[in-house]
């Protein structure tokens, strides 16, 4: 199996995700970038799982998928809340508190 290629794919996805979180100003885009990182984790776990021939990585990936869903559910609810109160989801505008 070409597990190294999968690990490279994981690393590239991780970098794209981190770049997205740091550079994007739209809350939904940031959420999507975080999803990219979580999926790079899943790819990593599955690739290692195949390489080691153990199921631990597969189980871990299942937990990551389930909990990522819960996280995004909360995140989208919060973005919606902000949209209702402010009519914008640009993260730069969130500056009520400073110091």
């Amino acid at each position, binding site marked *: 199996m070409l597990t190294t290629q999968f690990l490279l794919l994981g690393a590239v996805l991780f970098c794209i995700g981190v770049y997205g979180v740091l550079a994007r100003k739209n809350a939904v885009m940031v959420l999507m970038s975080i999803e990219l990182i979580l999926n790079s984790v899943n790819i990593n776990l599955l690739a*290692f799982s195949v390489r080691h021939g*153990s199921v631990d990585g597969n189980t871990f990936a299942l937990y990551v998928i389930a909990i990522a869903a819960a996280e995004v559910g909360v995140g989208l609810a919060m973005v919606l809340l902000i949209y209702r109160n*402010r009519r914008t989801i640009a993260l730069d505008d969130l500056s009520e508190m400073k110091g």
Partner: protein
Amino acid sequence: MLHSILAQIPWKSPSVDYHAIAPEIILAGGICLIILVDLFTSETKKWITASLTGFVMLGALVPVLTLAVSDINVRSLFDGRYVVDEFALTLKALFLIAGYVVVLLSQNHVEEGDYYQGEYYTLLLASVAGMVMMASSRDLVSIFVSLEMLSIPGYMLAAWRKRDRKSNEAGIKYYLLGVFASAIMLYGMSLLYGVTNSTLLSDIGRELTVKGQFGGVQALAITFTLVGFAFKVSAVPFHSWAPDTYEGAPLPVTAFLSVASKAAGFVALVTLIYVGFPQAQDVWQPFLWVLAAITMTVGNLLALRQTNIVRMLAYSSISQGGFILMPLAVAGTGDAAGPALQSVVVYLIVYAAMNLGMFAVVIAASRTTRSGEISSFGGLFSYAPGLGVLMTIFLASLAGIPPLGGWIAKFTAFRAVLEAGGNWGYALAIIGAVNSVIAFGYYGSIMREIWMRPAPNGETSAVKTPSSLIAAMVITTTATIVFGVLPGAVLRFGDLADLTGAFGR
């Protein structure tokens, strides 16, 4: 492929020690119970959910106590993936009592604000359940699951006041940075699994030597994993969420996040370092050293210029986090492992007591002042002498003045660092000492406000403090004073023989 792997594994159902997981079972049952009770009570009787939550927290404390007095010292479940030992029990008790105090703090606040009481207490319980699980987790998967279980309700609690822009902002900032940090931590964990072929921490501890072919990947994996928890304990430079979230969130939630959530982060950090990376101190010692040094310094310097008391407490809790990190930064040197562990446990217990107490007083006082500005606390002693004295006690304890609890906590931290010795240890001790002096600056400025200044706009009517807040203050004040006067009472919770024999090693 998967089928063939699964077929090789002989499956037998694990034997479960129900006594060991009784606290978690009670909490899980309590969560369901409160959801149900909330459904069937009318709007005027929602206070029942608050009382029930308190009872569930105390009820879960009962099995913790019976486990503590039972003959079996270490109960290991699921092949050592979930361990109930003295360390876990001490911290479980801490989380449950802190949770109970937060319920006491919340009662009037949530009731008067009309903030969806049933849901509030359900989430609070879920978060405490996650912390209680975190204390026992000895596996990457269970650490991750309990971390999310304690964080996700926290995100929602921070954004609890739906129509308040500040609360929204507090929630989203906490959420985005929290999820980002846990995603990076997960990437580190996936690499840890990759280089060691196990998710069990004790296996990882044996494999991870940071030498040879995969040394670089191992170092990267350790750093990424620690970053996730550095965020949770709001260590600089991962602290930027803390002041905004603390200021915007409802005050009882702030108290909860700054004490329980932070303690849970430290518990995970300690388990990872002691069980997961005992041979890799060359990687995490410098990392934590830098974190501890800049966390103390930056937290303190920024606290000096705050005018809002909650923001000031946020920065003060960041700098206290630096003091808790301080002994961990030298935990791998020589014999320092034992004292460092003891000092972290002791500091967490004392810090929980004094910081919760501080928030209790702030909540009680701001019922009349209606403001978080430090200047609005002027003359507090003249019209509410009780609150004034209590606030002085907690401030003095946070600053580390003997004979209060904070002093013994700082003392154990410094002792652990000096015992490790070496240039790094002494340098860190000096940075810590300078910082404890700086801390007097901002704690003292509040004291001056309370004792010397006149009340702003002549508001001097007596403060009425609800009984639940008084109960919270009694618990925290007693703990703060007793730990200071009788240090033995708290030091034995961090007894080295018990704790270092722990972790199933």
